[in-house]
Each structure stands twice: as structure tokens, then as C-alpha cells.
């Protein structure tokens, strides 16, 4: 969540992210927020909470994920991206995407 250290990011990633408010901008202006996941309920078993808190799924698939346009509109939104090719397919406003589950199964291109 810390924005410090984010300033150098523009050199690391060259992909363009379609912000629903500002249109296509270089990824360096954004902050990656991880894949869209369902937060366990308060009564969920401890194991589920531990997995949610500490395990990053890091899947080879098409997934919806959070992006934050930190250098401009400062809004969070969702991007559908293929983690195998890094291709950004579309973006959506929060609430427009129902499920947190990745679409495709992992597999080679």
C-alpha cells in the first residue's frame, strides 16, 4: 500500500493500461493491486484466511486484477490481463465484474 518506491516504476513496465477515466496510459503511472479475489468471511476457517493473506495465486491465466491510477485520477479499477503474454484485454469499473475467479485454466500458449 505504500506509495514510496513507486516512483521508479515507470521504467520497469512498458505496457499500456486502459484507465476507465483517463484512457490508455503507461503502466508506470499505475500501481498493481493483485488479482481480484473474494475475501473470506469473518467465520471462514483459519486455513482459508492464511491462504488469502499470505499466498499470492500468481496464476498463468487470464485474470481480472486491480490497478490504481496513482499518478492521475487516483481511482481503482479492474483490468483483465493474460499473465502469460502480459496482454491487457479490457478494463472495468469495480462492481462491474462479478467473480474473483480466474477465467482460463493455466496452460501453455
Amino acid at each position: 500500500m505504500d506509495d514510496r518506491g513507486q516512483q521508479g516504476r515507470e521504467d520497469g513496465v512498458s505496457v499500456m493500461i486502459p484507465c476507465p477515466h483517463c484512457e490508455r496510459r503507461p503502466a508506470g503511472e499505475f500501481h498493481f493491486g493483485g488479482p481480484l479475489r473474494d475475501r473470506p468471511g469473518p467465520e471462514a476457517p483459519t486455513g482459508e484466511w492464511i491462504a488469502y493473506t499470505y499466498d499470492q495465486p500468481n496464476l498463468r491465466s487470464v485474470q481480472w486484477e486491480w490497478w490504481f491510477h496513482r499518478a492521475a485520477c487516483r481511482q481503482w479499477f479492474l483490468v483483465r490481463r493474460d499473465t502469460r503474454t502480459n496482454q491487457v484485454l479490457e478494463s472495468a469499473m469495480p462492481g462491474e465484474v462479478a467473480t474473483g475467479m480466474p477465467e482460463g485454466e493455466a496452460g501453455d500458449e
Partner: protein
Amino acid sequence: MSSQEGPCTFTFDGRSITAAPGQTIAGALHQAGVHVVSRSFKYHRARGLFCATGRCPNCLCTVDGDPNVRTCVTPARPDMAVRSQNAWPGLKWDVLSIFDRLHRFMPVGFYYRVMHKPRFLWPVFEAIVRRIAGLGRVDRQSGGRRRYDRQTLHSDVVVIGGGWAGMHAAIEASRGGCDVTLVDDREELGGHALFDPVSWVEREPEFLSTVQAVVDDPRIRVLKRATAFGCYEDRLVAVQAGDRMIRLRAGQVVVATGGWEKPLVFPGNDRPGVMLASGVQQMLWRDGCEFPGDVVVVTDNPSGYHAAHALRARGTRVVAVVDHNETPAADPGDLPVRTGQTIHSVSGRRHVTSAVVGPLDAAAASSESIRCRWVVQAVGFTTASGLLAQAGCRLVHDESRDLFRVDRFADGFRAAGAVNGTFDIDACAREGRLAGEVAAAGEGGGSIDITPSETSPPVRRPPQGKKAFVCLCEDVTEKDLFDAVAEGFSNIETLKRYSTVCMGPCQGKMCQSGSIDACARANGKTVAETGRTTARPPDQPVPLGVLAGRAPHRHLVRRTALHDWHTEAGAVFLDSGAWKRPESYGDPSAEYQVVREGVGLIDVSTLGKLELRGRDVAEFLEFVYPNRFAKLKVGRVRYGVVCDEAGIILDDGTIARLEEDRWFLTTTTGNADGVDSWFRWWLATRPDWDVRLTNVSGATAAMNLAGPMSRQVLSAVCDGDLSTEAVPYLAASQLTVAGVPAIVLRIGFVGELGYEIHVPSHLAEHVWRELMAAGAESGIRPFGIEAQRRLRLDKQHLLAGQDTDALSNPFDAGLPWIVKLDKPDFVGRSALQRAQGRERGQQLVGFRLEGDRVPPEPSLVLVDGRLEGRVTSARYSPVAGATVGLAWVPAESAGNGQQITIQLDGQLVNAVVQREPFYDPEGTRLKS
């Protein structure tokens, strides 16, 4: 030709060398008779100019302190100091060339395998390896002189390569209405055409008018001496232009990077005097060099004949043109041609003295040794397709032309010219125009059919001998590769990693085709089956400074609305993130004292400030903070700690309820943006919440009026009742201060009666001046963050990020009361519930150290000689009469009154844990 007027002199290893106008360093050295310019990486063999086109490792020198300069493409400048590399003690008597004779003891992977073994000796070996296997040396003195910079450019169409095909692509794309950027790494546009004038004699007017058309076109921006070294996602082309790094974002990309002449592999092929024809041509035409003596030209295409003619015109005696073909590849005139033959080896240590030529089949007995000084090879090109591969284009092996080329383009990409395996002048122009047209239409990408070449495929020369270098950079021989394959490194990728072939400065430009070829033969496979290694940036060598850049925008500086006042008052500034904050106004001790005894004023505008409105703010805050807010009364403020799902403290601050549905939050300076985005994320996950968050950090300035006399001072400029009954400790009031509407929070970070006053930024200086004027009688002083840090330490108030880290939860940080696990759900609840049940690890505690020695942060806390904790903050405290601080210590040592040991200046000193504030433990002064 460069614009330089007369000859100039520079030094090479101390020797004075004269360069003709426009000559490169290497050209001048060649003319001066310096034919050994470097020593090879592993065996320290003598190496001379080889490619003369900036693609191989041979001419790398240190120029004015910059290591690894390609002298064959670097113009000579007056008074340059050029030094050879890799030679110790000197080029001529390189004692390390003994390695050359120990060759059989130094197989591939030698340094790795042998020198790693006796572990205890590795440091010794490492020092030696560093000395002998290095690639030049960084001059620490000169490093800081250079200024690197960066730039961002956009273009509809980017054409990489300013040769015949590239120029035509640029013209056509411009004609299609696009803004075009043409990137070329040479001094002049024209590519290979510049260096093979023989083939261009009838086309000179056409050539000149094409160059002119590019230069005159207002829509074409030409970047000369600019190297495209990377293609990244969404068509970001990385370009180095001198000391500048250009991030070039392209709508469409046309790659017209041409090719690199590929060397033959035969014993002695690395000896000075063996060269590539394109390089020889460049040196003839660009540098005006001569090649005195006899030359043997090996070729399978017309360019070898062109080179032979050109050399002869310059006075070299052509003793043989060895043509792989059965019939000459071009009109031989009266050149002494030997068809159906090739070169088998050369002799000579510091320079070629003779060459053995004979039938392609090496076994034939009829080979013949020819005395010569030069061996020039012109046996075709490797496509310069690295950028295309990086971009995600698919490269396949075109058997009919024996080269790799693209059959499926990445989105937005096209290629034209030699990089496609097209060498015919007219075909290059056609391809260029077509690529430009496609790019202008925005239609780059897709698959193309590869039509086999009509001419017969180039004649393959069987492998020769053992000390035949495939890789000049890393001294990898053909035999090394065969051995490595036999050891099991048969895949081209593992072969590369093990043998380090293609991993040197040329990055495969010289050795890729040879290594793939060797790998294919060693495995009994075809080149197509063998494939190629993954292409990664940089495609061309780039100085690290260019990548680091100056990036002016990174040195963002933020100043508060009161900055000018601080400057006038003589503030000593401290960088706090991007902020400039007064550390003190010259005397932090006096500033400390005045707050304890009278009244002080500090600028705290750098705090993050968030305003939240809406019906569900209370519910939201209950969720993102571990403590309770639903029942916080209007007009009250409460301390809060933000935790993540792992229960780790992210930040702390205050939460004020100004109205039923209007709240005002502060964050620490460093985390202002982070908390803002953190809260926004939780809000985004729950669109049903009625919460509107406005970040007012910049719009609002803040100052803290603190000290026992602060009420009196504030009263003078504030009309409301400030009595403790009306404005008690932890009140959040909306008052008018110096005529300005203000949010006034009665909190006491420094441990005294105090008011944090938030006002609109543009009125901050007015309010500040009024407060200073009102406090003049009471002896008010501004205080800086050094005094503030001392003051808060007396109270053991932690600074999130200073005293906490990525493992700190509220239980361990001494804030267990803040966690309300009986709330049904909040961020971090699950982790904190687990943490509560767990045995305590390290605890953050206050400590008192007698005397005035202050342990620097982070001094170590030792238990029985073991590292068990650290000091996060420490200062001398006048009120405690001792040094006080905060430290992480093991739970067993965390009890009040327990002794801990701190390492201070190499000594161990004892301190005592104190679990209550060093000053006013009851908080009566705060609440007064």
C-alpha cells in the same frame, strides 16, 4: 564524414597517434600500424580489428576513463586518452597469454568448475579471476562527470534502421500522413550502401535524392547516432542517443536493421589480420585506411569481389579470391579466383602470415598455403533480428537463404530489407515502401509467406580444426561446444549458459550463427530443429548510466505553504520523502525547552489529510481500523492504527468526527498517498458503501501549537471558548482562528497541552504569522522536527515506519488496547486473533540509558552476546536526565525495570526497560 577540420592527435597506451579528419580511433590506429588492439577474454590471445562495424568485442578500449568503447565506430577527437583493455602488464607482452598455451587445461566452464572447488581458496582465485577475466575497468574518478538524461517521444511510425529499406519505409509512412521517427546508429543515413560504393555506382543520384527526401521531410524526425536496443510491450522502443535514453512510444514499428556479416569458423580465425569484408570496406571508404601487403578474400557472393576490387584500388595485392561456388559469384575480371574452395586455417601469432586454402572437403590433400597479411571474409549475413524477436515476432530458419527471419509479426510490427533476408537493392526499396504503407495504415503484424530463394542455397563449409573460435568475446572454440554437447548440454539454451557462447559483449552478433551451426552438427540436427536462444534487451550494449538516467522528475521536491516563512526564519531543512521540512531553526535544544515550558509552533502540513463524508463512514472506519469508531461522538478525535490483513501496522494517525457524517483523518507524512490508495481500494471493493473520500492533504495546511502557554496564545486569535470544559483533551472543534475557519484538534503528540490547527493552505502563512505575533509576549518559538522527535520520545509515542517495520503488529508494538477483537470483522482481524494467542516475540519498549551517550539507530540489542533486538529511536532527554529511546527487545526482557544490553561504539552498555512514559506518565499536562 565528420565535420572536424584538420588531423588530430590522441594517445593509445601513452603513444601519440595522429588521426585524419573524420577517422575513427580504430582507423587511425590501423593507419599507424597498430594491428593488435586488445587481448581476448580468457586466453589473452592477440586480437585486431575484426568486424570494424561495432559488432564484435575486438576493438573495445577504455577511452577517457569510459570502459568498453567500440573504437571502430567512435570518431577520434583531439587529446583522447585511449587505453587497451584486458592486457596485463601491456598489449605486446601480455604475460597472461600463457593461458593460451595452457588451453587444454582450460575447458569450457573452467573458471566456474575449477576455481569454485576448494572453497577456502575461492577468495584468492576470485581476486585473480577478476583481474584477468574482466572487461575493462570502471574509472571511479571519471564516473561522476557524465550527465545522463532521458526523454520520452511518441511517433505514429518508428522505423529502426536508416539503410535503403528503412529510408523508403520512412518516406512512404510519411506520405501516408504519419509522424515518423527514423532511428539509425551511424553518422550518416544509408546503411550498407555507404560502404559498398562499387555496387552503387550507377545509382548514386537516386541514393542521394532518397537521403535528401528523408532529411527534408518535415514529418520525419531522424535520430542519428541513436541505437534502438530494446522493444518492450505496447511498442515502447528504447533508444540510446549518446548520453540520453529515449523512451520512444510507437504506434507502428518498421524494423529495417539489416544484417551482420557472419564469420567463418576455422583455426586461427581470430588472428589479427582476419577481417570481415564489410568492415574492410568501411575502413577503406570511411577511414581512408590502407591494407598494405597481400590479401586472400574468401567469399560466396558478389560482395567479396567488390571488396577485392576496392582493396586492389587502394594498393593491396589480391593473391586469391577463394569462392565457395563452382562458378564465380560475380565477374572476376582479372582477379585470381579459386572456385569451389575455402579457407582451412591461417598461421601467424600476432598477425596473419599465411592462409591454407583448398577444396571445401577438408580431407582433400590438395590444399595449399598462401603467404598473406590479410584474410577478408564475405560469406553472407546474419539477420539483425534481435529487436523483432524481443517484440514477440516468430523467427524461423529460412533454409533456402540459410538465415533466421520472421514469418509471423507481433502486433504493429513489420520488417523490411536485409533483416528479412532481402539483399537486392530494388527488392529492399520495394519492401521498405510496402512496410511503410502498412505501418501508415496501422496494419502491422500478421503472418507472411516465405518464398524460397530462387538462387541455390549458400554452400555449407564443413567444420575445421580445434582452435577455431566460434565466439570471440568469450574465447569459445568449436571444440568446446562439441565437448559441451557431449557432456549433455545439448539444448541451445543450456549450451549457451554453460559455454557462455553469445554471452559476451557482442551478444551473439558474431557468434550466434556459428554456435547454432555447431550445436546442430554436434547433435546431428538441422539448424531449424536447433532453433535460437531467446532474445532479450539490450540488443546493443548500453552504458549503465544511460539506463539509470538523471530522471529529473524523480527529484520531486515538495514544499509546504509555510516554506518561505521557514526559509526567512533560518530553518535548517531536512528531506522527508519529497518534502522539505525544517529540522530546526538553529537550536533544537532551545526549541525543545520552549515547548516544555512556554509555547512553540511547528508546521505539520506534511501530514496526510483525508475528509470522509457519507452515511457509512463509521462502518467503513470500524472496518479499516482495529479499534472502534461507531460510537465516537461528534466533536471528538481518537488515535488509530491502520493494519493490513496480516495485522501489520501500516500507519497511524488521528480520526476526528466533525459532524455526524463528516470525518477528518490524518496520516503520517510518508504514508499519505499509501493510506489514501489503501482506503480507496477497500471502498472500491464495497461500492455499496456510502462513503466519499477526498484527499485534502495539499489543500490544507496544519500547524501544531504546543506548550503550557498554548491556550493563552490561541485565545488571543480565536473568538471561541477554549477552556478545558469547552475544548477538552481529544476535542475536535471547528473554530475561527485569526479569522480563518479551522479544524482544531486537541491532541498532544509532544506531551503538552496543544492544538493541531488545520486551515486552507493559501491562508496558512497568515494564520501562522498571527499565532507568532500573539505568542510574542509568551516567548513563542517555531520548532522543527528534531525538537518534536525528542519531545515525543519522552512520551514513548512511536513513529510508524521509524519504530515499526514490516513485522510489527499492535500487540508487539505496545498498543494491545487498540485491537478490539470483539468486533465481528475488520481488516487484519483474523491475523491479529492468531497473533494474540501466540507467544510474544520481540516487543517495542522504552529504555533509559544513564548518561548522555546516544546510541545511533539501529544499534543492536544483545542478550548473552546474541543479537536479539535493535534500537529504533534514541535521544538525550533533559526531563529524564538520561538518554531515552525505543527498542525492540525479546519478550523475556521486556518487563518494566529489566536490564538490556545495547552495543554502542563497539562497547556494551546497560540500559533499563521502562514501560511508561519518561515524562508526565499520567498525562496531566496533556489534559490540563
